[in-house]
């Protein structure tokens, strides 16, 4: 029922919650690039320390981050195994009749999965501490210049916020329809993939229908209030950079210098 959706906003009042969403978004975006320059144990240590520091600052329980790692865990394990088995170089650590594990393989596996983990955790930090409204506002403003080359920035941002808004609604709806069909004897759990997919048709069709109906109703309601896109529209909530937001630049530069100095 009230299952948490990955990346859901966790209301709070930590320093991370109070940063300007644009500053946060830019910071995380640049941070993702920075991670690809991290290439040895000391630089990874710096990044790990930084990430844990941020988690601490966010006052959000670790367990929620574990929840957001779960969906990518399979990819992480899969690539780690590939690296362990395939990458050659360095001393041999383990020999079996089927494969040989080299030192380099272990290093690569650890680094690649660390990179994945950090990406996921940083992305979750952003969405946990920023409401979807703030996030789309930030995106809209950051992409503002693209309007000059006729990118419909406002419309894209609006679509994104509507999509985010309707995730829980659709989730609830799916549960309802699923229960109704289960009560009519639907068998969703057994059979091969093809059988299971066809078993879901009685759930998807009503779901699509109600989504279309919802979309139509929403469009009608917006038109009834004379909504006409972003032209000349003023904002109720204005975003404003504060001193602490400029601090993020300093923090980022420190990270860049630190990693540039320590990387090999």
């Amino acid at each position, binding site marked *: *029922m*009230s*299952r*948490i959706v990955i990346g859901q906003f966790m209301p709070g009042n930590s320093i991370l919650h109070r940063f300007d969403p644009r500053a946060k978004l830019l910071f995380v975006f640049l941070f993702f690039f920075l991670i690809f320059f991290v290439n040895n144990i000391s630089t990874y240590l710096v990044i790990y320390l930084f990430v844990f520091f941020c988690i601490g600052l966010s006052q959000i*329980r670790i367990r929620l981050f574990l929840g957001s790692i779960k969906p990518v865990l399979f990819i992480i394990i899969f690539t780690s195994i590939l690296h362990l088995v395939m990458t050659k170089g360095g001393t041999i650590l383990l020999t079996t009749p089927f494969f040989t594990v080299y030192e380099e393989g272990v290093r690569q596996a650890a680094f690649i999965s660390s990179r994945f983990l950090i990406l996921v955790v940083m992305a979750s930090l952003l969405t946990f501490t920023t409401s979807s409204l703030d996030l789309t506002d930030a995106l809209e403003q950051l992409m503002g210049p693209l309007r000059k080359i006729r990118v419909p920035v406002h419309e894209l941002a609006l679509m994104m916020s509507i999509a985010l808004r309707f995730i829980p609604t659709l989730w609830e709806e799916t549960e*309802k*329809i699923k*229960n*109704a*069909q*289960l*009560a*009519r*004897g*639907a*068998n969703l759990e057994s059979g091969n993939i093809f059988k299971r997919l066809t078993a879901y*048709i*009685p*759930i998807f*069709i*009503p779901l699509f*229908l*109600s989504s279309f109906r919802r979309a139509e109703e929403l469009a009608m309601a917006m038109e009834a209030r004379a909504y006409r896109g972003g032209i000349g529209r003023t904002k109720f909530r204005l975003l404003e950079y504060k001193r602490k937001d400029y601090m993020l630049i300093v923090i980022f530069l420190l990270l860049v210098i630190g990693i540039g100095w320590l990387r090999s």
Partner: protein
Amino acid sequence: MDIDVKELSYVYQKGTPFEEQALSNVSLAIPHGKIQAIVGKTGSGKSTLIGLLSGLLRPSSGSITIGDYHVTSKTKKIPFRSKVGVVFQYPEQQLFAETVFKDIAYGPSNQGVSLKGIEDRVQQAIKMVGLDETLLSKSPFGLSGGQMRRVALAGVLAMEPSILILDEPTAGLDRAGSEQLLSLIQSLHEKNQVTIILVTHQMDEVARLADQVLVMDKGESAFYGTPIELFSDKERLREFGLELPTITKLINHLNHRINSPIPTSIFELDQLVAYLEKRRKETENE
């Protein structure tokens, strides 16, 4: 099949920070062929109780016995699912097939009924809900709201459940539509001897149909008894945030003006009219 529910509790997402006790220690007994009403505010645990009775949820503690089937927190596969038909709120939203026939046939075919059997059941079900057979080849999405709801109801009836759960069956229907649906439920109950569990906000429906009422409040059973008992205690009704049925209001209103009161156990307009006529004849004779 008799239903016997003993100290039933249900906890959502047990063992997580989102743990929530939705139902605690609810007991009720519904003899076969009775109509049981369940009323209560939103979030009072009605939906959870339905989920449990229909076998979609497994109890956290306590037990449900339906006929010979017994379900506790340890039961793996809930055996009575196909015996209990559930018509959820706004059931027309669950329609999916390209024809009315296929939609009604969905339940029975899941039950493994033979092709011939399915055809018979679909024919019967559409008759039971009072729709024309010519609709069977039409798309359910071209029907009116009231017709769609009947098709959805037929889809459940075609499974021939011995217990029928109706979750606010008249929600969103106009007066005529609700009236039709209620008489339909009444006649189904009389003809087929189906046990009916009716979840509703309408006290008029409770008064008219129910043999027993369960009032739910914050996941607990706040009152369990007959409609007459429930509607005779105005204080308690106010406490539950429930209204009197229209007919009881009318009788109370009349009783203020006359000396010998009309019994408030009358819940149907026909009965009230008959009673008043009888009284008039008696006074005329005197």
